């Protein structure tokens, strides 16, 4: 109970924080990736647009200059071609270089000169076949994204724009202008890493904020739990601290009001029961002095009965008997009031429970004989020393014995003692009237009688078994009953060998 109670607020905070992290992770990744794709598309589009414009002018100017040189001799065409290549790679280059690749259109008329060339060792296989096909079959500019491979095996992301050109006396060629996208990639990497970092920071911050908020809300709840636990343990003085003026404060106020009312109620009840118990105890004590006088005068009268009329002599006997009964009732009431007030004290000594039991049986042997009941004792051969309150243990056994004698209907009463190193058990079994099993749990009730119409033979107080049960529990032992109508009853007293220890076993089985 307690551990789960203490666990709950903890898991609540954790749960809220975890789900917040999860949700913000989803939101941040969706917005982040959208932002990233928009940014990268935009950046790339700008580059593509400028690249196409640049490429167009470069290719156009090359074509133009070559067309002008168509009348010139071969050497001069080569010179012009070289200068075209040089200017194509220098014009407009600033941060990222341009590369130019010239490839011959396959199948076109082969001139004396081969003008295939590529700048900066760009390998010609960088130009994908599908781009070449499109360029070969088209009169206009064609473009695509690609990887620019250098002979040194390095490669960068790039963009290629190509068109067919014709070189005088050289035939048809494809001219490609390649633009590096390395800068854009670097920019995008920067953007994406920034996005990741801000996302992460955001999540941590959100988790932190949620944690703090939860704590502000959960702390009073935890306080309330802690205080409730102290209430359970009987400390009613604890109150919640109310500092603010919000919902939490009203929880605190409501809690404190409840605590106050509980404390008052309990104090009132405690006081009531204290007064009640005090009253019972006082009454019992006050009754003792007149009872002593009564008892002594009745004894004086009783001792002189031989000179009395038979009626008066009998009356004196009845008087003595009833004073006895009254006294027993008073003693039992006082004992019960001690148990109720929880002031019953266990006075443990070391004693032989078998010897005690034999003494109890001897004390009751006269009553047993009068009732025609035989008591059979089955005990271990050796003494069984236990640590307990001898007065209480003997009282329990006397109560069980006289109860059994009362209800045995002349049949024998079996008494059994069993002992282990930890425990001892005393069973008292009669084969008399018995009791309905459903009434068994009532036999320990105060003043309860199985059959109210049945005459009381021994004038018991009706408190004997209640006291016996309390006596047994004071030792941390147990007193249990079994019974069936017509089959008799079985009462078993289980005691630890040392008063207050835990019972380890039930040495005598209750049933049967």
């Amino acid at each position, binding site marked *: 109970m307690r551990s789960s109670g203490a666990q709950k607020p903890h898991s609540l905070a954790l749960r809220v924080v975890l789900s917040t992290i999860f949700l913000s992770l989803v939101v941040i990744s969706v917005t982040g990736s959208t932002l990233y794709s928009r940014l990268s598309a935009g950046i790339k589009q700008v580059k593509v647009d400028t690249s196409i414009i640049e490429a167009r002018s470069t290719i156009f100017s090359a074509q133009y200059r070559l067309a002008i040189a168509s009348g010139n001799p071969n050497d001069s065409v080569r010179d012009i071609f070289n200068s075209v290549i040089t200017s194509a790679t220098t014009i407009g280059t600033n941060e990222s270089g341009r590369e130019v690749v010239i490839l011959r259109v396959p199948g076109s008329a082969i001139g004396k000169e081969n003008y295939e060339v590529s700048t900066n060792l760009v390998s010609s296989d960088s130009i994908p076949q599908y781009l070449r096909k499109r360029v070969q079959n088209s009169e206009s500019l064609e473009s695509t994204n690609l990887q620019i491979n250098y002979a040194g095996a390095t490669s960068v992301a790039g963009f290629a724009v190509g068109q067919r050109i014709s070189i005088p006396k050289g035939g048809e060629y494809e001219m490609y202008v390649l633009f590096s996208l390395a800068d854009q990639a670097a920019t995008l990497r920067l953007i994406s890493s920034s996005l990741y970092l801000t996302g992460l920071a955001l999540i941590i911050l959100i988790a932190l904020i949620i944690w703090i908020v939860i704590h502000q809300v959960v702390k009073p709840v935890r306080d309330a739990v802690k205080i409730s636990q102290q209430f359970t343990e009987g400390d009613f003085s604890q109150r919640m601290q109310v500092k603010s003026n919000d919902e939490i404060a009203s929880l605190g106020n409501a809690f404190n009001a409840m605590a106050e009312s509980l404390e008052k109620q309990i104090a009132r009840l405690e006081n009531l029961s204290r007064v009640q118990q005090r009253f019972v105890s006082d009454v019992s*004590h*006050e009754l*003792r*002095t*007149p*009872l*002593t*006088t*009564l*008892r*002594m*005068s009745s*004894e*004086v009268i009783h001792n002189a009965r031989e000179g009395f009329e038979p009626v008066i002599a009998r009356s004196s006997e009845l008087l003595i008997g009833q004073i006895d009964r009254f*006294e027993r009732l008073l003693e039992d009431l*006082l004992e019960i009031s*001690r148990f109720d007030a929880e002031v019953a*004290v266990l*006075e443990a*000594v*070391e*004693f*032989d429970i078998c010897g005690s039991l034999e003494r109890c049986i001897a*004390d009751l042997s006269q009553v047993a004989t009068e009732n025609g009941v035989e008591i059979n004792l089955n005990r271990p051969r050796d003494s069984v*020393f236990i640590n307990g309150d*001898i*007065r209480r243990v*003997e009282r329990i056994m006397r109560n069980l014995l006289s109860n059994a004698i009362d209800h045995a209907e002349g049949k024998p009463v079996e008494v059994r003692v069993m002992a282990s190193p930890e425990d001892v058990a005393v069973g008292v079994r009669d084969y008399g009237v018995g009791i309905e099993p459903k009434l068994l749990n009532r036999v320990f009730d105060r003043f309860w009688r199985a059959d109210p119409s049945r005459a009381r033979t021994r004038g018991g107080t009706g408190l004997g078994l209640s006291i016996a049960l309390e006596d047994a529990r004071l030792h941390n032992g147990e007193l249990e009953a079994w019974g069936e109508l017509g089959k008799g009853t079985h009462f078993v007293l289980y005691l630890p060998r040392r008063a207050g220890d835990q019972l380890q076993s039930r040495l005598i089985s209750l049933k049967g």
Partner: protein
Amino acid sequence: MTLVMVVDDDQDLAEMLGIVLTGAGIDVDLVSRGDEVIDVFRNNPPDLVLLDVMLPGLDGIEVCKLIRAESMVPIVMLSAKGDTHDVVRGLEAGADDYMVKPFRHPSELIARIRTRLRRTNTDISGLLTIADLVIDVVAHQVSRAGKQIALTRLEFDLLVALAREPGRVFSRDALLSEVWGYRHSTDTRLVNVHVQRLRAKVEHDPEHPEIVVTVRGVGYKAGGQ
């Protein structure tokens, strides 16, 4: 004729006690206030005091201490409270015995008073010894190395009971019957308290008794053999 002082504020009970005791051949001196006891006691020393705990004027426990301060006379406390706390308080104040009202058998009161009044074991002559203690039964004296130790009559009786049969282990019940005159009782508190008091007077080290030795689970025996 023996004289018993009955101290009780309940007039009817006091009168009844008087009737019963007189019937048993004992003279009775009735006192109803605690603060009058010590004067009456000095003027007319009784052989035994029957003392109620709850008294007007001066509490029975205090009265008991006052009497004990100047006399070893047997004191039997009468109490309407049977709680251990009260009983032990009475015994520690110096009472030899106590009876809880209402007495189970008024005749038992007489028996106990007689036991307390009995002249101890005058049939035994000579000296008894336990360890280094010498008990002169006839002179009613206990001494160690010639130095006398003052004991109440009950403590003396307890010591003599143990010393007379050096090998025997006495159960508490046996002691109750021999020393206190109880016929059937299991009130071991009485024995325990008096053994403690006796040890405090006669032992070298009451924590490690050598004269009144505890036999675990059974009772006590005389030590030093």
